[in-house]
C-alpha cells in the first residue's frame, strides 16, 4: 500500500483566485457558446450568430485600402536612415510624438473641432481596457469606490475592480427617462458610499453609452460636472464610441464643455479614448488617456510602461491618422454606414414587434423584451435569454450582466457582421417572435 505524503500546496494570491474577473457570467457564457458553434454563411449556417461583441466591421475596408495605397506606413528601412533603429529600440513611455499628435488631431476632428487636444497630454496604453484600469489605480486606493451609471459595460467589473481593489457603486438609471443620469441618482449613489464608510473618488461615464447606444445630453453632462466639482472628485469620461455617433452634431464631449468655460475645474476631468471601436482596430491595442491634470498625465505616463503600444503600430497609425483627407472621409463614411445599419436593425425589430431605446451612436442597440418576461426579475430575464442563445442561436447580452436594474433589456450588436448575416439574424428573431405569439395565443385559447 502506497503511503501518501501530503505535499504542501503552494498558495496563490487573492487576486488570482477571485471571481472579480467576472468571466463566469452570462455575458461571457454567451461568447463560449458562440466559440463552440460559430455561424458561418457557407459552412455553418445554423451556428450561433455573434451579436454580443461590439466590434466595428463596417468600415475597415477603408483602412485596408489606405494601407495598401500607402506602403510607406508599414515598410522598413526605406525611410530616413536611422528610422528603423529608433523604432525597434523605441520604448519611451512618452510614445512617438508623431503618433500622439495624430491621435490628438483625430480626436479633435471627431468632435468637429469644437475641442482642442494637446499632444503632450495624450498618454498611450495598450487599449482602453488598460487606460481605464490605469486611471483607477491613479485616482483611487483599494477599498475606495467609483460611481458608474447603470447599465454599464460588463468588462468594467474586471477592468476597474479586479487588480485595483476598488469598488463600483452603481448610479441607478431606468427607462422612465430613457436611462439618463439624474442629479438625484448621483446623490443617492454617493450617499450609499458614505453609509458604508467608503470614499468615492470619481464618477466614470461612458459617452456615447455602452450598452445604451445613445449619447449623453449636454445638460446632463453639465449636471455631472457640477456634481463632481461640488464633491471634489474626479470625472472619467470614456468616449471610445465618440466617432461612432450617427451624426456629427449628436455627440457632445465633456472636452467641449470644458473648453467653453475656459477649462475651469478641468483638473478633475480625464478622457479615455481608443481606436478599437471607431477605427475597427481592436487587435492593434491602441488606447489613450487624455487628462487635464498634469500630475495624472505624469503618473499615467510612467505607469503606462506596463502597457505600451508597439512602436511599429504607432508608426503605422501615425501616418494614417495624420492624413486629414483620409480621416475626414473615414469619420463621415463610418457614421453614415453605422446609421444605416442601425436603421436596418430597428426596422427589422419593429416589424417583429420589438421596441428599442432610441439610439444615436455606437455599435449596438438596447432592445426591450420585458413584455416577454414570465417574471419581471433577473431570473425571468435569464430564462428568456437561454432559449435565445441556444435555440434561436443568437448571442445577445442580457441586461443583468450590464447591471441594469430593470429586467428584460438586451444589448444587440449590429456592426460586427455582414448585412446578409444581419438579415439572417433578423429572420430568426422574427420567427422566434411569431412562435411565441402563436404559443401565447394557443395557451390563451385553451383556457
Amino acid at each position, binding site marked *: 500500500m502506497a503511503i501518501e505524503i501530503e505535499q504542501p500546496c503552494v498558495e496563490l494570491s487573492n487576486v488570482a483566485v477571485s471571481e472579480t474577473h467576472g468571466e463566469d457570467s452570462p455575458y461571457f457564457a454567451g461568447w463560449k457558446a458562440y466559440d463552440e458553434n460559430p455561424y458561418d454563411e457557407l459552412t455553418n449556417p445554423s451556428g450561433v450568430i455573434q451579436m454580443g461583441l461590439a*466590434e466595428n466591421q463596417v468600415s475597415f475596408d477603408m*483602412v485596408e485600402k489606405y494601407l495598401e495605397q500607402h506602403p510607406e506606413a508599414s515598410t522598413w528601412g526605406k525611410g530616413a536612415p536611422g528610422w528603423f533603429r529608433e523604432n*525597434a*529600440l523605441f520604448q519611451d513611455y512618452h510614445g512617438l510624438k508623431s503618433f500622439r499628435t495624430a491621435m490628438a488631431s483625430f480626436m479633435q476632428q471627431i468632435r468637429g473641432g469644437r475641442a482642442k487636444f494637446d499632444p503632450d497630454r495624450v498618454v498611450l496604453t495598450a487599449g482602453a481596457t488598460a487606460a481605464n484600469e490605469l486611471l483607477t489605480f491613479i*485616482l483611487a486606493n483599494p477599498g*475606495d469606490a467609483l460611481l458608474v451609471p447603470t447599465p454599464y459595460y460588463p468588462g468594467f467589473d474586471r477592468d476597474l475592480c479586479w487588480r485595483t481593489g476598488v469598488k463600483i457603486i452603481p448610479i441607478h438609471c431606468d427607462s422612465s427617462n430613457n436611462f439618463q443620469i439624474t442629479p438625484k441618482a448621483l446623490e443617492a449613489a454617493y450617499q450609499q458610499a458614505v453609509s458604508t464608510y*467608503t470614499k468615492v473618488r470619481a464618477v466614470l461615464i461612458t459617452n456615447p453609452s455602452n450598452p445604451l447606444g445613445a449619447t449623453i445630453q449636454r445638460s446632463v453632462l453639465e449636471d455631472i460636472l457640477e456634481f463632481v466639482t461640488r464633491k471634489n472628485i474626479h470625472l472619467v469620461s470614456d468616449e471610445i464610441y465618440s466617432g461612432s455617433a450617427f451624426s456629427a452634431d449628436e455627440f457632445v464631449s465633456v472636452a467641449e464643455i470644458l473648453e467653453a468655460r475656459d477649462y475651469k475645474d478641468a483638473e478633475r476631468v480625464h478622457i479615455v479614448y481608443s481606436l478599437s471601436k471607431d477605427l475597427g482596430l481592436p487587435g492593434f491595442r491602441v488606447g489613450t488617456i487624455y487628462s487635464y491634470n498634469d500630475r495624472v498625465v505624469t503618473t499615467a505616463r510612467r505607469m503606462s510602461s506596463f502597457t505600451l503600444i508597439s512602436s511599429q503600430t504607432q508608426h503605422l497609425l501615425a501616418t494614417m491618422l495624420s492624413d486629414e483627407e483620409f480621416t475626414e472621409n473615414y469619420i463621415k463614411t463610418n457614421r453614415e454606414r453605422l446609421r444605416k445599419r442601425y436603421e436596418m436593425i430597428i426596422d427589422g425589430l419593429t416589424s417583429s414587434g420589438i421596441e428599442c431605446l432610441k439610439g444615436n451612436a455606437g455599435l449596438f442597440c438596447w432592445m426591450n423584451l420585458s413584455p416577454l418576461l414570465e417574471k419581471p426579475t433577473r431570473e425571468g430575464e435569464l430564462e428568456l435569454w437561454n432559449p435565445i442563445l441556444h435555440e434561436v442561436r443568437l448571442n445577445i447580452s442580457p441586461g443583468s450582466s450590464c447591471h441594469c436594474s430593470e429586467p428584460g433589456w438586451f444589448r444587440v450588436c449590429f456592426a460586427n457582421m455582414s448585412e446578409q448575416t444581419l438579415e439572417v439574424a433578423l429572420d430568426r428573431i422574427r420567427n422566434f417572435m411569431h412562435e411565441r405569439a402563436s404559443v401565447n395565443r394557443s395557451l390563451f385559447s385553451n383556457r
Partner: protein
Amino acid sequence: MTQNRSSRQSEEDNKPYPGRRGGGTAMRVIVPLQGVVQGRGGLFLGSVIPCALFYFLQLYFKRRHRTPSNSPPPSSSSDATSSPPCSPSTSTDKLTEVFLLPRSLSRILLSPRGASTVPYLSSRANSIVKAENSPYILGLRKVAEDSYHRIDNPNGVIQLGLAENKLSLDLVQDWLVENASGAILGGQEDCREFNISGMTGYQPYDGLAELKVAIAGFMSQVMENPVLFKPSLMALTTGATAALEILSFCLADSGNAFLVPTPHSPGFDSDIKWRTGLEMVPVPCRSTDNFSLNITVLDQAFKQAKKRGQKVRGIIITNPSNPVGNLLNRETLYNLLDFAREKNLHIISNEIFSGSTYGDEEFVSMAEVLETENVDKDRVHIVYGLSKDLSVPGFRVGVIYSYNEKVLAASRKLARSCIISAPTQLLLTSMLLDTRFVQKFIEINRSRLRKMHDMFVAGLKQLGINCSRSSGGFYCWADMSKLIRSYSEKGELELWDRLLNVSKINVTPGSCCHCIEPGWFRFCFTTLTEIDIPVVIERIRRISEATKSHS
C-alpha cells in the same frame, strides 16, 4: 480577567471602522491613539505607541539617507502590541507614505470636513514623486537632453545606463526590409491581394497561438542546452515588465514579500512593488564570491523576514543576472528548488538575457532543471521577453511561462490589459519561424557581445578598475570604490554625479541596484560601437586622475 478584557478591547481598538476596507495602516495607528486619548487601552498602549511612533520617526529620517537595508529588527516591545500583521519595517514605509500624503488628505485626517479644491490622487500616484528624482531617471533625462553623437555632438552625454542592444540591429533590419511587407500584410510579396482583416479583430488575451509557437521555438533555440518549451504553458504580454507584474499579482497579496538577491535591476522597485503593494526582502550578495547567490544568506533573509512578521511568498532570481551578469549554476538551482519546496515558496526565474550569454560558463534555465525533476513544478514560473535577446524593445513582447495551471489561467485573464499589438505579433511570428535567420542572429549577436564585453572590461582594467566576472547580459559591473571619496552611498552618488555632469557618461550607481557594497557601477556596453569605447575610457581616466590628484 481584567487582562483579557483590556486585551480584547485593545484588539477592538485596532480594528478599522466597521465596513471600511483599506485605509490600512494609517487607521491602525490612529484608532489605538484615539483609544488612548479616550482612556481605553490602558497605560501600556499609551506609552508604547508614542514610543514606537518616535522610533519609527527616527527610522524614517535615517532612511531618507538610504542606509543599507540590513537594519536590525525593532525592539520586541512593539511586537507585544496586538498590532496588524505587517511588520514595523513595512509600517515604516507606509508611515513614510502617510507623511508624504498630499496636504489635502492630511487636512481630512485632522478635520474631516476640510475638503480642499484639489481632487485627491492615490498613494500610488503620489509615490511616483519620490522616484522621479532617482539617479536612474535623472541620468536618462540628461542623456535625452544632450545625447552624444560621434560627429554631431562629440561632447554629449554617452548613454551607458539603458539596456539596449544596438550591436545586432542591422541583422534585424535587413530581415525586415526583405520580408516585412509580406509578413504584415498577410500575403506574399508579389501578391496584390491585401488582407489585414486577420489582424484587426479582437485577439486572444494572451497572444496569438502562432506567435506562442514561434516564441517557444525561439526560446528553445537561444538556450545553449536543448530545452523544449511548450506554447500551451505561455501567456504573452506587452514586455517582460508586464509579465513580472502580473506574476506578482498572482502569487502574492498586497503587503506580502518576495526575496530578491541584490544587486538587482533598478526597474524592480516599480515593476514589482508599485501597484501590487508588495515588498522586496533583499538577499545581499557580495563581491567576495562574485556576487553569487548563497543559500545560507537566502535562508537568513527568510528567517529575518519571518521574525519581522513579513509573509514571504516567493523568490525572484534573474539569470543571467542584472547587473552583475553572472549565471546561477546547476547546483544552486537545485538548492534553490529544495529551499522553495521546504518553505513552500514560489520561484520566479527572470531569464530575459538567456540568449545573450557570451562567456565560458554554461547557462542552465529553470526549464532545463525541471525537465529532469518530475515533481513540484507548480511553484516555478519563468519570465522571458524579446526586448533583450532580439533587440526589439520597441515591439513590447513579454512571456509568462508557468507550469501552474491556475497561475496561467489567472495570468491569461490579467493579460487583457497588456495585449501585444496584432501587426507586431504577426511580424514577429514570421521572423521567429525563420529559424535560419534566428540561428545566424544568435551566433553573430553572441560573438559581438563577447567582443564588446571583453574590450570594455580590458579598457577599464587599464585604469585599474576591475569588473566582476560576467557571462551574459549587457553590462559590466565595475568596482570604482577606489575612486569614491568616502566609502558610502553618499560617496558613490557623488562619483555618479561627477561621471554624469563632468565626464558626461550616464552609468547606473550600485545603490540604484540596492548593492550592499558602495562603489560598484553598472555600465551597459551594448549601446556602444568599438570606436566609442576609447572615448568612454578616456573620460573615466580623466575623472580617475582628477580624483587621485585631489586625494
